[in-house]
């Protein structure tokens, strides 16, 4: 069986560009079918409701040729994962194999994100490519329900670490691995439900990619996917070449090192040179004691995403988009975790790296970059026992709001563009978990002032119905507000408050693990988006509209908006 067929450098030239575009459409359709399958068959709220998963198709060399519209951050993480898989198993793939991995030190992006990959073979045994999925699992073991906690201090507290292993060997599910998984996670039905969803998506990919292989022949398909990657690169380079050359540095901050509240700088120097972009994170904080350390691949994903967003054209989701972009990280820094650093909550570091890259790009491309949004989704993980004694893990992800753009107000209440997650229905959450949601809505006067104001913050409040519930919070932007641009002001800061039945309140740090006792209500407020432009230039009609809608003016005059 041959894994790679190198047909020489000129094989791309032989491709009809129209045929190439048609295959881009076909592969994108397959990736969407994979994503639909995960969404419809998954079990945990993180995957099925919040939609924290991705699906992609890679060529026989592990290069992405299509990705479904789901989590942009995952796109840039796939190359590292596939490189690692090919390093371990390259040349030894067999039809029916399914591979599983979550090791952040060998291709993964943190323990909860499980990669499930299936090699796809033609009838004649030629490797056509891979169906690739990654999904954020609600629990993979570790010291606290949900596995992720800002105050995890090394990888061994974060759950079960799996290097690349076979979940299926030539079609046979590996019973020993299943036993290990079952013994190490808190809610096995949820874990296996999500894993099965990922496998089902890979089966869908296999079914359809094989048809594509039959249509074009395995060589023909390889030539077409090569062309897709080459064309994508050409497209991205042509756009970057039109940008002005220059260098700019920006520093943004995390509120906490995971254990205590202190500013943790993320510094990036972005250089546009010709048709390439370099993002250098030298100068960022060293690794932190808590679980905010990011894998290098996740930081790469944040940079790719920022560059992608600044482009005019919608570029195919292929590996070619990465070639013109170079990312520099220092091993042992918060942007490049090394053994045994904890990384389960590195999501927020990725969000901040995106904000930092945008802060630098805004100096070079002022018309293309909006002010900072809420700073990323807040995680709130509730764990405990139901009235009947069975365990539950409820994974909440509070999505916030957008920064103002050079032409419009920030969107009020919209998922961060890095994750495009959904919210969890109040009625569904209350029916499935022992808690009630007391309120869910926008916070007036929380958008940064500007000629265009930042989006409003979002607030959600939960009241557990069972005593002694563990609560893990990963929020941010309680200290360093989302930045405004071009004279616009920063957004309002975030907050975490626990209200007791007697009305007394305690304020929580942005990143904390705690417990809620009976009758307590946890209230989280995200940050608001930053404003853009001089507030004095704001159109009075917009101020009047905001007043009428109660979006400003609840606590201050028109200037607040």
């Amino acid at each position, binding site marked *: 069986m041959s894994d790679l067929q190198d047909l020489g450098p000129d094989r791309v030239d032989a491709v009809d560009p129209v045929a190439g575009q048609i295959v881009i*459409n076909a592969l994108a*359709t397959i990736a969407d079918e994979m994503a639909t399958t995960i969404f*419809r068959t998954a*079990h945990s709220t993180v995957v099925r409701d919040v939609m924290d998963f991705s699906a992609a198709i890679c060529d026989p060399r592990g290069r992405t040729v299509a990705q479904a*519209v*789901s989590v942009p951050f995952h796109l840039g993480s796939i190359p590292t994962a596939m490189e690692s898989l090919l390093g371990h198993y390259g040349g030894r793939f067999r039809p029916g194999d399914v591979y599983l991995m979550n090791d952040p030190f060998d291709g993964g992006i943190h323990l909860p994100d499980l990669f499930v990959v299936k090699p796809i073979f033609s009838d004649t045994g030629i490797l056509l490519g891979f169906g690739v999925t990654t999904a954020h699992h609600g629990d993979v073991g570790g010291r606290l329900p949900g596995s992720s906690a800002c105050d995890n201090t090394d990888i061994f507290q974060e759950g079960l670490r799996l290097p690349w292993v076979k979940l299926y060997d030539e079609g046979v599910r590996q019973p020993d691995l299943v036993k290990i998984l079952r013994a190490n996670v808190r809610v096995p039905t949820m874990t296996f439900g999500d894993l099965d969803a990922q496998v089902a998506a890979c089966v869908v990919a296999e079914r359809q990619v094989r048809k594509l292989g039959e249509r074009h022949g395995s060589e023909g398909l390889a030539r077409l996917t090569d062309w897709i990657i080459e064309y994508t690169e050409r497209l991205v380079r042509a756009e970057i070449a039109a940008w002005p050359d220059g260098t700019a540095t920006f520093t943004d901050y995390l509120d906490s090192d995971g254990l205590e509240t202190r500013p943790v700088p993320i510094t990036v120097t972005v250089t546009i040179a010709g048709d390439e972009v370099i993002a250098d994170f030298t100068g960022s904080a060293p690794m932190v004691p808590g679980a905010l350390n990011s894998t290098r691949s996740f930081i790469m994903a944040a940079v790719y995403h920022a560059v992608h967003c600044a482009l005019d054209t919608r570029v195919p989701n292929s590996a070619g988009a990465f070639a013109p972009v170079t990312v520099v990280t220092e091993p042992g820094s918060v942007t490049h975790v090394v053994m045994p650093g904890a990384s389960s909550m590195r999501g927020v570091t990725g969000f901040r790296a995106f904000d930092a890259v945008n802060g630098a790009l805004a100096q070079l491309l002022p018309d293309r970059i909006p002010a900072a949004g809420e700073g990323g989704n807040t995680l709130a993980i509730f764990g405990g026992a139901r009235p009947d004694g069975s365990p539950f893990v409820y994974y909440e992800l509070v999505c916030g709001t957008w920064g103002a753009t050079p032409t419009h107000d920030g969107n009020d209440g919209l998922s961060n563009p890095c994750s495009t997650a959904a*919210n969890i229905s109040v009625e569904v959450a209350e029916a499935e978990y022992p808690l009630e949601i007391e309120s869910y*809505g926008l916070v007036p006067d929380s958008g940064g002032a500007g000629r265009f104001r930042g989006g409003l913050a979002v607030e959600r409040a939960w009241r557990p119905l069972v005593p002694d519930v563990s609560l893990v919070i990963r929020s941010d932007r309680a200290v360093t507000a989302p930045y405004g641009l071009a004279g616009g002001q920063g957004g309002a800061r975030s907050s975490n408050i626990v209200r007791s039945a007697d009305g007394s309140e305690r304020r929580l740090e942005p990143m904390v693990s705690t417990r809620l006792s009976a009758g307590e209500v946890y209230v989280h407020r995200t940050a608001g988006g930053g404003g853009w432009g001089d507030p004095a230039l704001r159109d009075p009609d917009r101020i009047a509209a905001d007043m009428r809608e109660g979006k400003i003016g609840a606590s201050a005059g028109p200037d607040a908006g």
Partner: protein
Amino acid sequence: MAVRRQGSIRLGADVGGTFTDVVVQHHDGTVRVRKVLSTPPRYELAVLDVLADLLAQPDMQAESITAVIHGTTVATNTVLEQRGSRTALITTGGFRDVLELRRLRMPHMYDLFWRKPPPIVPRELRFELSERVAADGTVRRPLDEHELRRVLEELMAAGVESVAVCLLHSHRHPAHEQRVASFLREHAPRISVSASVEILREEGEYERSATTAINAYVRPVMEAYVDRLDRGIAEAGVSAPLTIMRSSGGVMNAADAAMRPVFALESGPAAGVVAAAGLAEQLDQPNVIAFDMGGTTAKASLIEQGQVSRAREYEVGASLSSGSRLIRGSGELIRIPTLDIAEVGAGGGSIAWLDVADGLHVGPRSAGADPGPACYGQGGTAATVTDANVVLGYMRTGAVADGQIELDPELAEQALVDLAARLGRRVVEAAAGVHQLANARMMRALRAVSSERGREPSDFALVAYGGAGPLHAAGLARELGIRTVIVPAMAGVFSATGLLLAQREFHDVRSCRVSCDAPDAPAVIGRLFAEMAGSAKTAHGSDGVRLVPSLDMRYAGQSWDFELPLEESDNWLRPDAGLVGVAVGAFEAEHERVYGMRYDEGAAIEVRAVRLAAVYRTTTVPVMAPATSEAVPVGAHRETWFDGEAHLVDVRPRGQVPTRAIDGPLLIDEYDTTVVVPPDWTVRREPIRDCLVLERHP
């Protein structure tokens, strides 16, 4: 001498944004068609004008008309154009922003300048009540009538015309919502009130709020429209009741449509699918994919074993950025029974363009009707799919559609010259690329309703209609492995004939969480069926009404259901463990078919909703096409390109296609389209409906 026809006449009127199609069916099944420009915003005027014109004919009498069935885009356009009434929302305290937050998602990645559409009810008109019901339906905080009074005053002061009421967990405990609705109806009779439990009793506060709010928003507009149309028809002397097509493919009476217009949002596209299903039945083709391609969009829907496929949600006002239906957020998500129709932004008017790396793209931008494709000669210069089709010889040039449009081949070629030069290809090659890429985009819609649901497209025939459908059908079919393409007569107005076939129907639903292995599962399901059957009987009686039961099922823990029909002959009103077992088996089989896997034996399966449709048994007459008489010069030929080769191809009118199969290539020029039969296909005329059947050589 005028022929006075005997018997009943059925009249269907399909009002679209641009055209209004009216079909008249005589008792022997034959139809005749009128296509006129629509008359926005007074859409009823076009219908009434055509009606008056028809009644002036000697063979038409008002009293012979026994049914008037109407498909309308009025409700949808009201939403799209934001011309609805001043609408308020009343909801549970702490949740007024649910409608504005939506599900927080956006429809595509990498766009930091994307703007979320404004909510259908502005924030200052969203009111809160301090009542609260828990997830199990128990009352945590009772309804406060004083508060209700205060809200009423605010509604009046704000000049609100229509109110949506959606309280948390009302699907479990409807009493609070019902009380709010009756209070408002009593004290503010001029405000139109829509309560969520009267629209759908399903879990999900955002979807229920949005569905109810959209209903409230379009209701006064729709009420007025239906009233004007109804009166106009009566004034013309027609005593037959007016019925309106629902998004689900059935019809409802005018009063119901005025009260619950949200059910008629996708009225127009539904008619086309019903027409395709009717044609398929007449031709004994149980499995077909309906494919409708017009000027700006293409739509696809699956018909399996003669049954249309249904979906339970739909995004109104959604942009057509891609064929992906996973990604929501560009429109308001409403949950109503609808036909499962996938739509992509690709049509005859779609514009072809090159990116900075000279990559070719088609759509989603469209030249629309004005200026239209370059070859229309109305000032458009952008190359469109239609221009490509003209260059390839697929479309006839000169005057078409009664001379309403004149197609100029030189303008079409000119539009493609730049594109071809940048691609380094000949103009015909560039045109072929545009044609193929339009097909590739439409493939996403076709795949979304077939392979995405575990259905192999090659097991289906393609029914192609709409102005551009017959031009692209054979090429698309080849890509999908489909061997048979059916092109109905008058493909451009085919949709409207579906109105003549629609049955009156009603849909009811109860959300639940019942584990199939629970001992009381049959009893719970039976109780919910009995409840719905009771209200169906009260509302519609039992004469000539067929009750169609189904269950929404999923593996415990999943968030997506399959709707599985129960055998109507079974005793579903008093289900037993055996009946539940059959449903479980059917669910597992369907899950495996769609997702390629089933869980281990004994994996918990839940019933999440119980549904009951009440369908009237109305007799409809199969549609018979009128004889076609197109003036095509005898011996006409056109140079036409297939797979990079030029062919001199015979051009015929439909009437000259024999009933035994002849080999392509062949072009059949029609009133408003051309049927393209490529070289590796055969074509024959099917006498039953005068449609053309294309078959690919094995």
